């Protein structure tokens, strides 16, 4: 019966230093070929599996995985809005990866009459995304998270918000007010929609 357990049987040192050619001079080119071949095939094998795997993991970087509320959503009759801001919730169908959820709340907006037109402001604070509230006593908007105050026209007055409240596209169709709900990048001066 054979017993092969000589892991350190004299040929191999206790511990070889780096760079030592542990094969010796003889057969060096064959060893080199085998070593390189081993490395190359191993890398290829790993790549064959890891490449697609990483592509799959990275899928959300280049693709939309959630969507919804791209179009105009009716929020109420024209007459129901006045100078005093009214908060409306926006409902839309949403696609969340493989799910489609019908008529869920996707966001909300403050709507008020400004001059002879209606304006709608997203309730998402341009600073860090908290919810903006209206303070009737002062006729101003406030994001209480970090004390950003906005005028009733939506302009930033005090606090850390880098820009005024984000206006949303609105239109009135046969007395029905409709809003196109969007989200915008936070923390920057410009108003850039998130794709």
């Amino acid at each position, binding site marked *: 019966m054979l*017993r092969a*357990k000589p*892991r350190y049987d004299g040929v*191999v040192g206790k511990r070889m230093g780096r760079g030592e050619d542990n094969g010796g001079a003889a057969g060096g080119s064959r060893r080199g070929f*085998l070593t390189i071949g*081993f490395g190359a095939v191993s890398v290829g094998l790993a790549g064959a599996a890891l490449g697609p*795997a990483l592509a799959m993991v990275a899928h959300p970087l280049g693709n939309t995985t959630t969507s919804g509320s791209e179009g105009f959503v009716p929020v109420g009759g024209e007459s129901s809005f006045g100078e005093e801001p009214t908060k409306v919730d926006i409902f839309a169908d949403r696609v969340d990866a*493989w*799910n*489609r959820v019908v008529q869920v709340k996707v966001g909300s907006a403050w709507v008020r009459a400004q001059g002879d037109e209606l304006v709608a402001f997203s309730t998402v604070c341009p600073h860090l995304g908290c919810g903006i509230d209206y303070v009737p006593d002062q006729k101003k908007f406030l994001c209480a998270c970090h004390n950003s105050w906005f005028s009733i026209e939506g302009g930033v007055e005090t606090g850390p918000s880098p820009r005024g409240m984000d206006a949303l596209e609105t239109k009135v169709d046969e007395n029905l007010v409709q809003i196109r709900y969007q989200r915008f990048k936070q923390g920057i001066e410009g108003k850039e929609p998130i794709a």
Partner: protein
Amino acid sequence: MRGDGKFFDTLVDAVEDRLGLITTWESFRDRDVHGGVRLRHVFPAVIMYLFVQQAVLGTVLATYYSPSATDAWASTAYVQDTVTMGWFVRGLHYHGTSVLIVVIGLWLAQMVLHRAYRAPREVTWWAGIGLLGIGLALGLTGNPLPWDQAGYWGIQVELSIAEQTPGGEIIRTLVQGGSEAGNLSILRLYALHIFVLPGAFAGLLWLVSRQRSQHGLPAPDGLSDADAHKATQRYFPAQAFLDVLAMAAVGGLVVAMTMQSHGAELLGPADPTENFQARPEWYFLFLYKLRMFMEGPMEPIATMVIPGAAVTFLVVAPFVDRVAGKVGRFVVLAGMAVLMVGTIGLTAYGIQSDAADEEFQKSVEAAEASALEARAYAKMGVVPLGGPAVFFNDPEYRTKMLYKEHCQGCHALGGVGGDEGPSLEDYSSRQWVSALIRDANTPRFFGNTKMKGEMDAYPEEDLPAEQLDAVVEYLMQLQGDTEVDAALAKKGATLWEDELECNACHEVEPGEEGDGPNLHGHGSQLWVARVIRDSSQGDLFGDYAAMPKFADKLSEDDINALAAFVVKQRGQAPLEVVPAAAAEPAPVAEDPEPGEGAAPESEEGEEPNPEEGDAPQPEETAGEEPAAAADAEVAADAAPEPEPEPAPKAKPKPKAKPKPAAPKADRANGRAVYMKKCKSCHGADGKGQTTFGKKLELASITPMGLSKIKKAVMRGVPGTKMKSYKNKLSAQEIDDVSAFAKSL
């Protein structure tokens, strides 16, 4: 780093002192391959490679897969059809299991062939058997996870088999997480698949590696110890290169299988109601076939006795090998041969007989077609109600939902719905129309509308079956049916015009307004769409309209889809020819308000119809009516009846104040005609206090003069129940009755 790299050396040494990575690598690299490099030694390395690859791919798949009965299928479809390279990764993972099972089987065969299972390496051998079992179990638990038809039915059958073994019911309930398959089943299978089984697999792999360190590789047969020792090589690089080449070959095979089959199959969502012909994965096909050879009471032999004996044989093979010189060795080889030939033979037989089974092939095609449909819908997103909800994306589903929301309350269909309006079951088919003509006043048609009583019933004695058929055929022609019996329709048209006088109420020329709906194109999609938009148009149901106007409630697309849906009901459920009954298509006059239980309103409440331009309609102009009429109206308004009443027929119905008889008219005859034709609506005394209510009050029109009355009798009064009597009464009779009415 500076100078000659001393710093770097120091860093490496420091790390090495702590982790010993280099030492570990070197001891791995320098292991002895006893007797020299051999291809036969590659198996454990390939198994290790496949296992690691499966683990990596499985982990990535787990970042998308959602293990619930609601989401499993949809998330797998998402991986398969939407995620970048998702199909490829899933395919590698799926085929990887198949290949892993084959490689483990080959390794076991190799061990037998080279007697590598003998002492002291029995543990390696047993570990190999264990790995094979776990590999099969990984397949068994992995295949149901997509919760598609194949996965769902596969696990159903497997659990049913398990259930028939002693204690099997408990096993089934435990694996399934209850008495039926569902969320818990998926989670249990998933937990087994991703934690328990891979853990056990890794443990056995560690054991194999440990055994190799303990005992080394077996020297090839026929070599003496000394020769073997002389031929010993280090593991690296020759054997390592061979190992990695074998891995590459196997990996290439997995990739090729994945490309060839475009990943792994994904059938439609699990549907417990469908007759899906379940087949096990190929690596269980031999067991499936074995069972088919032993049905009934023999089944346990196939399920337990034979597999149990085979496993037992494998486990004890190292000991059998030692028995009686070469006899034991022969028994093991013979046993292995039987096992392999049996397994391969049954598998091949299974594949071949399925391929030759037309029924099975048909069901496979059907399942694949249904899968394509489901997966196409899935791209729109699945409402989170489970895989089958994917069919909610079917365009007709939306229409059905609209129907349910807006129509079903009044119109029955498919045995569900109210009877406030006509049933739409088999709508506007020959049978439907026939039944309506026989008696429109049943709840199936207008019996619960204001139109009740507006259209006479036409029982068999008034309208023999063959005449009815002719009229119906004519109506089908009006409807636009292209397959009408022209001769019969012509006969019907004649009956319509002359004998039955349907045209007294129903116009058939486009746009013409009559008492009843204009029947040009009735029941066609365009017509139905118009009714849905606004049924109170003059050439539809006019003042009798009870349906809400949907023109501003639904989009044009939705209205058209609904109309198409309603029209589609035609001919779906053939009805028996309905026996005679009385029928009056009476449009219900209701305000188009969607209010609940809207009671029919009095006609005054509605807009006056644009009548024939000449004269204001006496009935409609409330303001002109004398006090008596006004009283009647008040009464009617005050007591709205639950049952919609048909609108009044405008027949002159005189009241008090007898006036001088009209010249040349025969009042006695006029009275007789009145009593026969007019009394039912206008009352014997012309006060109109009949069931039709206020509108029938004649007092308001008698002052208008004989010519107006005559005109009303001749032409009828559009928008009311007052029909034209031009064709029903002779000129003399009209004169007479008008005169009588004038006198009331």
